[in-house]
């Protein structure tokens, strides 16, 4: 028997200022599954996540969450003002966590107790991402939506966040929707992949759907293959080469 999906999306379209950003997007996600969303810059990946969590209203179509689903969202950009006087603990407390949740969460996000006293403004972007992850984990979500940053993320941070997400999938049994720029991440972690370029170009298992044809449709031939080739050596031992 198939489990009831956490999320079903049917024929979703989103418009901003009257301009269609994405359309004809349909997919579903079961508990503990990982869906990777890939596509070139400006293809509407971030908009899709923002629509799923309710920041942007859909123009058309249906988004059906299983009732009572707790959703954690890690936005792509989390700009912290250089002078913001706030510790990690004060920031996490803004969510009014249940008693004990704070300490459970930082442990789950691989952060030690001394993290709580650190200044938010002095964290690197990779460290901030961990804080955001802790924020999302505070109310024990069944699904995490992770919008991978394109720039300014220290490589160490980026590598560990995927390991971390993978571990969370095992230990906390969360489902994941990951917006990624890195095909390694997709092949390694995702059950399904959704290729987006304004419209849904492909949807299904990565090994089956990520054909050269699809990829060139998605990224354009030359830029994509040239890029992959020249970075191939280094790609093997690091993530997020974009």
């Amino acid at each position, binding site marked *: 028997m198939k489990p009831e999906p956490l999320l079903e999306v049917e024929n979703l379209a989103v418009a901003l200022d009257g301009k269609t950003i994405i359309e004809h997007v349909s997919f579903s996600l079961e508990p503990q599954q990982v869906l990777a969303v890939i596509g070139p810059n400006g293809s509407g990946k971030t908009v899709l996540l923002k629509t799923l969590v309710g920041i942007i209203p859909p123009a058309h179509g249906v988004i059906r969450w299983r009732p009572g689903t707790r959703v954690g969202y890690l936005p792509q950009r989390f700009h912290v*003002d250089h002078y913001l006087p706030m510790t990690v603990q004060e920031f996490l407390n803004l969510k009014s966590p249940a008693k004990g949740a704070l300490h459970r969460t930082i442990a789950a996000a691989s952060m030690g107790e001394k993290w709580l006293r650190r200044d938010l403004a002095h964290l690197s972007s990779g460290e901030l991402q961990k804080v955001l992850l802790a924020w999302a984990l505070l109310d024990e979500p069944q699904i995490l939506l992770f919008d991978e940053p394109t720039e300014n993320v220290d490589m160490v941070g980026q590598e560990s966040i995927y390991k971390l997400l993978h571990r969370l999938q095992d230990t906390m049994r969360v489902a994941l929707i990951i917006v990624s720029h890195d095909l390694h991440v997709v092949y390694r972690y995702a059950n399904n992949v959704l290729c987006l370029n304004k419209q849904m170009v492909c949807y299904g298992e990565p090994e089956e759907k990520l054909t050269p044809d699809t990829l060139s449709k998605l990224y354009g031939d030359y830029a994509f293959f040239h890029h992959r080739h020249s970075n191939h050596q280094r790609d093997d031992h690091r993530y997020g080469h974009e």
Partner: protein
Amino acid sequence: MTEPFLIILGSGMLVAAASGLVGSFLILRRMSLLSDALSHVALPGIALGVVLRFTPLWGGLAALFIGVILIWLIETKTKLATESVTGVLFVTALAAGALLIPEHELLEAFFGSVEKITLQQIAFQTLIAIAIISVALKFLKPLTLFSVAPDLSISVKVSPVKMQLLLLVLIALTISVGISFVGVLLISALSIIPAATARNLAWNYRSFLAFSVALAIVSLAGGLLVAQRYAVTPGIATVLIAASFFAVSLFWKK
């Protein structure tokens, strides 16, 4: 010190506490210039009060609310650049107010006048200040989150649109009760300078809020006391005291 002066001092300290608290959100949200511009909107309202002989405070308050609604509509409903529109709107309001108001009253409206505060006005200001402080503390977490990370506020079911409106209303109320002490031109200084100073001194969020409130109170109380002894307008003394704290805090900064 006379009894009325002590009452004014007490009321002023509450108004200052409200300013310091609201000012900290303005600094975090980078809205300090908006509050400065908004304060000018009070002038036509005050002018109407002076000309038509009703309490200028009410006119100022009404004008501020119209200003708040206008900003909110511009921000949420139009694609106009908020900065330029508010710039145009508020300088116009300032000019219109200055035109309406009799010249000898103009300086008072600009820089505040404590002598003219009536007991009724003091009671009203004090109540509003207490209301501002209670609402700001009740909504402390959502207001803070909205100011620091608007994108995350939706994840805790906080509507950014409503928080923006709440913040604007709090600013308008703070301006309206502070005007009689420091005037239209200096009022934003009472909320911005203490918060900016507090940011230089604070080691966490709690201390930031505490410094901001304390510095606003000390500055206004100091201003009123100095004005009592020397021939200075309280508003000017207050702002200069607040500014000297800021100057000192620059050296303190980590």
